[in-house]
């Protein structure tokens, strides 16, 4: 008995339940629906829900907990329990139908409960992320000393034991790539936002704003390939090699530059919104004193919008730190602490991918370190996100 067939059975039974419940409600009322508290369809829906909900919950539990159950239970008892639950629900709900049964209230209470369940999935996701990261990180620190992870400056995993798993080279690579990306994205994004919100004509805006936002909709794998095939070799052949700075096509510069392009719309869209929220009266006051448009932007609009712009930059920074595919394909895999931006370096996300892909068993520190790295990443981005959202919200309140 496969779950698929069982699900079909439960759904079919629920459909029958609806029809049966509706008919029974009508016959209890002697064919006159007006005598019922609730309309017949609600009686049908109540039967349907009593048939389907417990059975589907059991079914899901069976599918997900199958590895934990004994084979006999899994093959026979569990499907039987599901079928019995469906039939029992159907029978119980059908025989309960009376003229004054408040079927609508029952159905609505159940629906609200389902809706609450839907919103709790978001909470469950967060709990799942935190618990799985913390649990495996603790496991990791039992096998590998925490002070070495946080203080060591070498990263040299060796499958077979005796690895150095220091966080610093990865953290440095992550921050360096993100810095390069922000150095590219912030000026371009900010100037684009200034031009779009203060200078551009309606037609320019209608064309340029969506064009820039397309950059945000392109999957990161496309940027990764762009870095790997076009930008990396270009930088190597035209900048790094003539200047004698290195001969690697994957480098901090490659990844940072491409990531910077990706981040432009993140900076520009939010800054654009925020600058549009600055009251026109402030601009008019500045023009009235004889300031030029650029002086108004620099002395009045930007300072007024500054908190929001800082929020936008923090959100972009959080994106940069958590970005994976561009650095996997553009930054390289060598963990080193270096200042030369044309050297290949590696980041936290690259190492999470490389430690967890392939055949992984969850017993060695070389695999479990990925969870500690994941937790580090999660904490960093969480702090940046919360700070950014707090700043943006505070700022919005200021002018509302």
């Amino acid at each position, binding site marked *: 008995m496969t779950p698929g067939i069982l699900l079909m059975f439960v759904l079919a039974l629920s459909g029958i339940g609806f029809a049966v419940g509706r008919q029974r409600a009508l016959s209890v009322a002697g064919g006159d629906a007006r005598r019922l508290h609730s309309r017949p369809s609600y009686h049908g829906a109540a039967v349907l829900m009593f048939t389907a909900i417990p059975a589907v919950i059991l079914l899901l539990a069976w599918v997900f907990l199958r590895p934990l159950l004994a084979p006999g239970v899994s093959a026979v008892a569990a499907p039987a329990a599901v079928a019995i639950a469906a039939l029992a629900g159907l029978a119980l709900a059908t025989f309960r139908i009376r003229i004054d049964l408040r079927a609508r209230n029952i159905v609505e209470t159940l629906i609200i409960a389902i809706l609450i369940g839907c919103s*709790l999935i978001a909470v469950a996701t*967060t709990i799942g992320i935190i618990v*799985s990261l913390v649990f495996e990180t603790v496991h990791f620190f039992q096998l590998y000393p925490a002070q070495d992870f946080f203080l060591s400056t070498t990263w040299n995993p060796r499958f077979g034991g005796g690895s150095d798993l220091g966080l610093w080279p990865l953290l440095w690579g992550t921050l360096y790539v993100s810095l390069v990306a922000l150095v590219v994205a912030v000026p371009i994004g900010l100037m684009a936002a200034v*031009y779009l919100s*203060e200078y551009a004509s309606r037609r320019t805006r209608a064309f340029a704003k969506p064009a820039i936002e397309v950059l945000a909709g392109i999957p990161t*794998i496309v940027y990764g390939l762009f870095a790997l095939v076009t930008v990396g070799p270009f930088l190597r052949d035209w900048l790094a090699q003539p200047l004698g700075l290195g001969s690697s096509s994957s480098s901090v510069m490659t990844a940072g530059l491409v990531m910077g392009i990706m981040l432009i719309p993140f900076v520009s869209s939010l800054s654009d919104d925020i600058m549009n929220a600055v009251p026109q009266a402030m601009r008019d006051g500045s023009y009235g004193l004889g300031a030029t448009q650029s002086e108004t932007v620099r002395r009045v609009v930007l300072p007024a919008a500054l908190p929001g712009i800082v929020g936008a930059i923090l959100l972009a920074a959080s994106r940069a730190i*958590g970005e994976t595919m561009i650095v996997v394909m553009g930054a390289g895999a060598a963990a080193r602490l270096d200042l030369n931006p044309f050297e290949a370096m590696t980041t936290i996300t690259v190492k999470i991918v490389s430690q967890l892909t392939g055949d992984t068993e969850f017993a060695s520190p070389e695999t479990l370190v990925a969870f500690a790295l994941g937790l580090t990443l999660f904490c960093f981005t969480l702090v940046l996100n919360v700070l950014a959202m707090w700043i943006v919200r505070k700022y919005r309140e200021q002018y509302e």
Partner: protein
Amino acid sequence: MTDTPAPHRSLYDTSDRIRRRNASEKRFRVMGISAIVVSILALAMLLVSVLGSGLGAFRQTFVTIPVALDAAVLDKAGNRNPDEMKKVTTVGYEKLLRKALVDAIAAAGLPVGDLTEKEIAGLLSQEAPATLRNQVLADPSLVGQTVTLDVLANGRVDGFLKGRVTLQSAERDSNISPAQLHLVQAMQGAGMVGLAFNPAFLTAPDASDLRPEAAGLGVAILGSAYMMLVVLLLALPIGVGAAIYLEEFAPKNRFTDLIEVNISNLAAVPSIVYGILGLAVFINIFELPRSAPIVGGLVLTLMTLPRIIIPARAALKSVPPSIRDAALGVGASRLQAVFHHVLPLAMPGILTGVIIGLAQALGETAPLLLIGMVAFVKGYPSAPPEGLFDAASALPVQVYNFTTRGDPAFVERASGAIVVLLVFLIVMNTAAVLLRRRFERRW
């Protein structure tokens, strides 16, 4: 009033100071325009670079030769029974193809120099015998006939026709020699070799490192489609349900505040963290199979949910309260007011958000790498729901997979896969825009 009066000056004379200020105004404006131009140029370069190398993947080099399907070799029993014909392995077909190619070259009178038969056969793809074998097994009546076939050429020959492989590069290449390429040139002159549209790129499964010419996206497209199915079936109802509860029914208290902050945070969590979650929970604890679309779909669902809930709430919020009040006024319950009146009016906005969320999920790569979707998968998954548990690939992961291989022919295929991915994304986003234009209402 001891100040000496300022010298009279007309407003029409510009002072140095004014000139400086105007120049700086102009500079500022130019900086703004250049920022826009740079962004759009970057977009254009990105697309040109991908499209430029990717469109080639849709055309492939074929060798057109008559192949005698010898009954004595392929069907010794002579009863055209596919089960018995399966005894003949690809080696047998390889010999047939080799003979056919050598004969065809001799018949056309092309100079072969001192190339051995093996080197001549090396112009064909190693995948070609298997393709021919499947073709014959599917249609046993072909045996005994001589059919003219378009046989897949080797990746290097394909590269030569597309300009990726040159006579110089062939000298350093162990897989092809300049003499072989001269023969290809002669064959091209005789019309035996040429580029043609290659539908197999969209339907064939992945191929091994030595056969880039045979690699296709069939399994990846199917896997992505399965995952999108899972995401749609789960994220749409759950996301809309959560949005309805939070927007219409939730009381204002600390707990619902917590849910709201939580959802906006989840939308900004790096996607790779969802991959770790999927690995730890779905694969480690629930022991679901690796590389399976169901796991990928579940991970992408969790990732997409907040990105669906936020626009869905905005859509519900934009429905004016008078609609609810009118429904409540004629005796509807709160639930009836929402489900019969508010939700249908908010539906276009909600669906727009769902499509955009799905498009993001379709292009997501990082979490899928962690749950093992990067594995080499050659068999198609079966039909859902069972097929959801079979191993499959996904389009963006297939792109990554291609780029990790040594042969530069795979870069072309990676770009081609991106072209396919972008076509899907453009279709989805256009649908979202049209939906918004068509049904958006301003109250």
